[in-house]
């Protein structure tokens, strides 16, 4: 049984029909990517999984439990953590406080201390800036903080919304190799990207989203080689 199974969901913003009957699955241990152009509905899909939006129809199953309609703050406790688009760090709080908030749902202080060490191991720059206000970090550091914060809940499934946004190529490569490491350490990843090249290079499977519908899906390497994808998303 897949870890996450989305079955024919429809999501609206008022009268705008943003997601038109999407189904997708994520298996335990995978990196799955959801690619598509601006406004395709990638963020809407992630925000629906994490409970910030409610699907009008359709089901979302996570580890055998129907989570569609569950409030966002409870879905975190089920084991899903989101790194939102644009990082959304708490700018007026310190790096440490941001990480503490990531562990808000937890009461196992030993485990939290252990995960804090793990996060600092992955992002040494965060440890150097532990008492700095998060708003004063650079864009790349803010992305690292947003990822570290999400990891502090010890998620089973990590949702990443455009982690490459606004970052220099070298930094993008660094972030993506960290995503691979996180996955290898046992966290399943659903990655939303406009940078299809990078996303397909680390994912095992991919879905292509176009104006609220999934138009293509399959093995990431096959998709990366496909003529349609190369024309539409990979610049030739």
């Amino acid at each position: 049984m897949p870890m996450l199974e989305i079955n024919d969901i429809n999501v609206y913003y008022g009268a705008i029909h943003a997601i038109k009957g999407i189904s997708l699955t994520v298996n335990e241990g995978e990196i799955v990517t959801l690619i598509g152009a601006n406004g395709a509905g990638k963020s809407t899909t992630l925000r629906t999984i994490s409970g910030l939006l409610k699907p009008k129809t359709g089901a979302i199953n996570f580890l055998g439990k129907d989570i569609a309609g569950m409030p966002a703050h409870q879905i975190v406790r089920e084991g899903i953590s989101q790194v939102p688009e644009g990082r959304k760090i708490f700018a007026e709080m310190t790096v440490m406080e941001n990480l503490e908030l990531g562990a808000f749902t937890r009461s196992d202080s030993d485990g939290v201390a252990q995960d804090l060490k793990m996060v600092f191991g992955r992002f040494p720059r965060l440890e150097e800036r532990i008492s700095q206000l998060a708003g004063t970090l650079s864009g790349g550091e803010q992305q690292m903080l947003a990822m570290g914060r999400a990891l502090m809940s010890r998620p089973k499934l990590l949702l990443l919304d455009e982690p490459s946004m606004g970052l220099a190529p070298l930094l993008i490569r660094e972030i993506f190799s960290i995503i691979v490491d996180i996955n290898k350490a046992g966290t399943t990843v659903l990655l939303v990207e406009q940078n299809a090249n990078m996303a397909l290079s680390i994912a095992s499977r991919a879905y292509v989203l176009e104006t609220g519908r999934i138009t293509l899906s399959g093995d990431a390497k096959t998709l990366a080689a496909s003529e349609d994808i190369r024309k539409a998303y990979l610049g030739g």
Partner: protein
Amino acid sequence: MDFFHQLIQQLINGVSLGSIYALIALGYTMIYGIIKLINFAHGDIYMVGAYLGFFGVTVAGLSIFPALLISMFVTGCLGMVVEKLAYKPLRHAPRISLLITAIGVSFFLEYAGMYFVTATPRTFPDTGLNFAFSVAGFIINGQQVMIFAITIILMALLTYIVQKTKLGKAMRAASFDTETAQLMGIDSDRVISMTFFIGSSLAAAAGVLVGVYYNTIDPLMGIMPGLKAFVAAVLGGIGILPGAVVGGIILGVIEALVAGFLSSTFRDAAAFAILILVLLVKPSGLFGKNTNEKV
């Protein structure tokens, strides 16, 4: 009495009055911070707090400190109930609906107050603090000492809660970005509820202290201090806790100076002149960052 002497004496009076404004303004600013509502009923919550303290002392025969604590607790619960019944159903409604509802709650509390306790002002009984002593020729009375002490204790406690506890961090996170706070597993409804509890209990403390300080209370006593505390919160920068404290003290001091050196008839005018001045010169307030609010 020379000028300098009178100046210091007015400063002492001003800081006492300002502490009370600060306690009320803290609730205003906390509630604004978390749901962006100017809670016009906050002054009336303060009035309820004053009455509960009054009944605690007179009917229940308690001494002033237990009466204060009970009033703070019960008024805090009232704040939570008001939020749940009146504001929570409007969570996704336009802000103007929320504002109009707050004005409705304000009238409701005022007229419910008149119905239940009548419009006749009540006199707070002697709480054993009606003594005065002089320090280097300046007169300080027992009520002022109590106001200073309780204000400082409550502010220290609030600072601790907001800065150090899990609830405080959740409150700051939800004030900054409610949606992302939810992604951390924070139940924003619960945090909003707790914010109303804390804000309302601070207002109740102010109400009891005013009862002790000025001796009389009535169901409409919350209107003016409510407006003044709003001015204090705007002066300090709405949504910013230290701003509310500083704004409250400055307002109290200016009022005392105006009353002492010009005429007490200008006292209230001074507060609103400050509001107009702040809105013209620095709308984000003393502690506010000069960002243009996106509409």
